[in-house]
């Protein structure tokens, strides 16, 4: 089984999709000749041509809008948004057009557009390069949102997003682009369904749900908790819309405690959605309130203080302590 970084795995996934289906096109800023600012699309233009790997004008609404038009003509465009904070010029096209066209046309039209967005902080960057806007999209019916946390998932989710008849946003954990892992390019295995959560570590005392860049942090926190004699189950949510509540609830019914961690601000975030679902469906199993760990209600702070903003092992452990103190 080859070992590759998440960035390389996405690149390989895109290559497989381009090779397997003539209707797949890539479009974005600097994705062609340069291969993307993170080199995720490196080599694809020379392999498949500028007609299929398109260096677009610098205009996010145009990128999403023309991708929609291409999909109406039968293509499967994969649009890259260069950084999380720059998706907003395209927000209108994503939420009022892409998300709704299938429903508006009573199913006559499909718009199988994939949008790739590198997201999240921890890279010491300037403003608008470290954000986690996934909840803004999850709130919009008609979109599917997934986020890989490892190379194997990155390889398969990229292709699964492209193959979906629905629009899919893939949030790529940019600070993990260089994280290496084994990729089974023959068999997705348990990753066959991108909308299912994975239990990465079994435990009996508490559950930590995380996704994308915080998955390794959650695993490390569980490891640390084990040293204190606490058995913590870790779930990689993988899909943010839809959310695999069944897997989360089955875990909570076993452990009785839940901590949800994400980089995005907690207010109005995915953690709140999970907390309310769990309280509705598994209230009697809960030994403690569901506790959220996430960003604060502020613009993403300057790089020199981001380590105090981003949830880390200690923040998750502190949340577990609170859960155990009930």
């Amino acid at each position: 089984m080859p070992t590759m970084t998440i960035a390389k795995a996405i690149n390989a996934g895109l290559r497989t999709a381009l090779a397997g289906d003539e209707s797949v096109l890539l479009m974005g800023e600097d994705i062609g000749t340069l291969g993307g600012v993170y080199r995720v699309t490196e080599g694809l233009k020379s392999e498949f041509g500028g007609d299929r790997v398109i260096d677009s004008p610098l205009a996010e609404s145009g990128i999403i809008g023309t991708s929609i038009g291409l999909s109406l003509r039968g293509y499967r465009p994969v649009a890259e948004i260069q950084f999380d904070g720059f998706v907003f010029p395209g927000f209108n096209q994503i939420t009022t057009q892409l998300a709704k066209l299938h429903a508006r046309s009573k199913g006559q039209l499909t718009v199988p557009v994939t949008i790739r967005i590198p997201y999240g902080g921890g890279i010491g960057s300037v403003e608008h390069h470290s954000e986690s806007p996934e909840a803004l999209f999850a709130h919009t019916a008609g979109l599917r949102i997934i986020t890989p946390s490892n190379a194997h998932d990155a390889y398969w989710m990229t292709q699964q997003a492209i193959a979906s008849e629905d629009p899919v946003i893939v949030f790529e954990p940019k600070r993990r682009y260089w994280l290496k892992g084994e990729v089974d390019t023959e068999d997705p295995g348990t990753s066959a369904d991108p909308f299912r959560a994975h239990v990465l570590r079994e435990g009996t005392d508490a559950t930590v749900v995380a996704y994308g860049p915080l998955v390794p942090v959650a695993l490390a926190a569980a490891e640390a908790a084990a040293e204190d004699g606490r058995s913590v189950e870790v779930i990689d949510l993988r899909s943010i819309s839809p959310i695999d509540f069944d897997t989360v609830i089955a875990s909570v019914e076993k452990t009785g405690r839940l901590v949800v961690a994400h980089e995005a601000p907690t207010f109005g975030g995915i953690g709140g959605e999970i907390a309310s679902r769990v309280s509705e469906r598994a209230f009697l199993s809960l030994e403690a309130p569901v506790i959220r760990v996430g960003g604060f209600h502020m613009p993403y702070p300057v790089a020199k203080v981001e380590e105090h903003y981003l949830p880390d092992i200690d923040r998750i452990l502190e949340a577990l302590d609170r859960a155990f103190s009930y």
Partner: protein
Amino acid sequence: MGVELPTTEFSDIPDELWLELEAHAHEAAEGHSAVVRLLDEKGGFAAGSKLADAVRALNPEDLRAMYRDMAMIRRFDIEATALQRQGQLSLWVPLRGQEAAQIGSGRATQPQDYLFPTYREHGVALTRGVELGELLRLFRGLSNGGWDPRETGFHLYTLVLAAQVPHAVGYAMGIQRDAARAEARGEDPGDPGAVVAYFGDGASSEGDVHESMVFAASFKAPVVFFCQNNQWAISVPAEVQSRIPLFNRAKGYGFPGVRVDGNDVLAVYAVTQWALARARAGKGPVLIEAYTYRQGAHTTADDPTKYRLSDEERMWLERDPVSRFEAYLRAEGIADDAFFADVAAAGDALAAKARADILSFEAPSLEDAFANVYAEPHPLVAEELAWHREYEAGFADTESAVDADRAQEGGR
């Protein structure tokens, strides 16, 4: 394409006409804001140009068909406005005054073309074979359309201003790729079509129009930007949207822009055909500014007396596109009283059908709305649908209980 579209078959554009329009566009780019016009306000014909000669050679049958479309859609529009007043529609967006801009451009398209309207393009819909009653579904609150965009090559209406314009460019980029691939396979791509994007003077200020024009120019996409400058965006006059004639903006993007008298169906037809032919020939986009006027209110919810003078309205009524064309057809002996009476009767029949259609539409249920949120199964939608059904079923019990009560009451 499943539907036979009532497009008009004209001979190919003669070279001289082509050159004349190219020259016109060039002149426009140089800053002369000449308007392409053939019919004056009294229906008099401006002979003496190649464009005029080409239009003169048009088949009388086609000219009558064009008039018929204009008169029919005007009659339909009157009926729909009345239906709204009578509470049968929640809103109507009148097209009155823009018949020439819409019928002229719509009739210049071919069945393989794909058109992206805004929300006022009822005339274009007619030329694309859209069953007009379907337009009423939207404004009655039954659906967001009703016609099949793939069958008619006429996209759903878009209410988010200008959002459809980049879709048009993307679609045109798809057409380019289809053609290139067919050629690469050694096949003759035939005519894979071209695209028309409709938008208004107000929408022209939206960033999406700018981005679309950049994309279309960079990729030489086969798309015609058709801007109906009807002078108003609700209450805001066109001067607030642009300090230069709108068509001049094309120059900044690097493709031709032409202003056409939007109340002259012959000129609109000729210019649109030229722009589409140019797009098909791989020469890239064109911006057409159809200079016209919204004779009625913005929508049935609007009161134009709040922002514009009746003098202005009167002036534009004198330029009315339908009576102007009628005057021409009469003067040329192309159509007579019998023809106009026949069209009026057909219009009344269409109006009566609209009125009947509207009452025959099946009421939608919220349950339908769960069906196409996603193309593939989605657990949350399934869960909420199940809950909704159960909840509604609870009322079914109540309703039958109430019915039973009533029956009892009646029996007492």
